[in-house]
């Protein structure tokens, strides 16, 4: 796996984009693996009965995609310390979901090399549905 060092990171740099195409099948797999069986994620009639246009992607699945973007980027020697998102907009199955991020700040604290990033998911209209932040600890070439 790729390995990201603290020295390789610059403020303002973009995190490599991760594109996902969640299908209804994937939502069912997620329901089974996560234990979230709320019907708005796989039963169209139920979802429409609550006022939604159709089934929607689980927030935690979108959040997981954003985590994958980060772990793909930092590699296994880096570590996510904190990651959080708010759900402002929905994603629908069979539509592209794009995970993006940018480095806001790099700093040292308590002997750790930390990088703070802004992260978000975009729908096909390019709207930010799921903004959030993430703090990762990275290895250094110096130590």
């Amino acid at each position: 796996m790729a390995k990201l060092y603290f020295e390789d990171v610059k403020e303002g740099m973009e995190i490599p984009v991760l594109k996902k195409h969640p299908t209804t099948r994937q939502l069912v797999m997620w329901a089974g693996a996560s234990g979230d069986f709320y019907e708005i994620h796989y039963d169209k009639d139920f979802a429409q009965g609550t006022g939604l246009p159709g089934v929607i992607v689980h927030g935690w699945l979108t959040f997981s995609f954003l985590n994958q973007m980060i772990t793909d980027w930092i590699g296994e020697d880096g570590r996510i310390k904190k990651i959080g998102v708010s759900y402002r907009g929905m994603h629908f199955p069979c539509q592209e979901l794009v995970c993006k991020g940018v480095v806001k700040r790099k700093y040292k604290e308590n002997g750790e090399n930390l990088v703070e990033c802004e992260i978000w998911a975009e729908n096909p209209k390019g709207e930010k549905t799921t903004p959030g932040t993430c703090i990762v600890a990275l290895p250094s070439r110096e130590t």
Partner: protein
Amino acid sequence: MEEIITEEIKKRIGVESEPVYFDVEKGHIRRFADAIGDPNPLYRDEKYARKTKYGTIIAPPTFVTALTDREWARQNIFEVECPLKRVLNGGNEIELYEPIRAGDRISVTYKLVDATVREGKVGKMLFLIYEAYYRNQFGDLVAKVRNTLIRY
């Protein structure tokens, strides 16, 4: 006017729940990673994982959501007495202190930490903030999760 932050909600704020326990299985971790579509070998390849600093298969950061006491969440958050019946996940935040590993026995406790009412586009919205604390078999806190559940 009907009260939104009911006595049932008020009496729960600040009270930590009794722990529930989960035995973390590598098959479950693999199915979880498959559902994300994440091919990372740390989540599925024992031989590979053994040579890393982790020494064994670990779970993706969001695996904490698979270790949820849904009955607690139903009684205390999703269906706790309140005139606003519809629910939305407003946000989630994970603080990770160390990875959850295959073979761990994880205990989870919960606490409702805050309840606030805001005026939104669809009328009054109740924001329930609740935290979950994940400890491993050695008693170490491995993760803390802060959730925002919206009732509207």
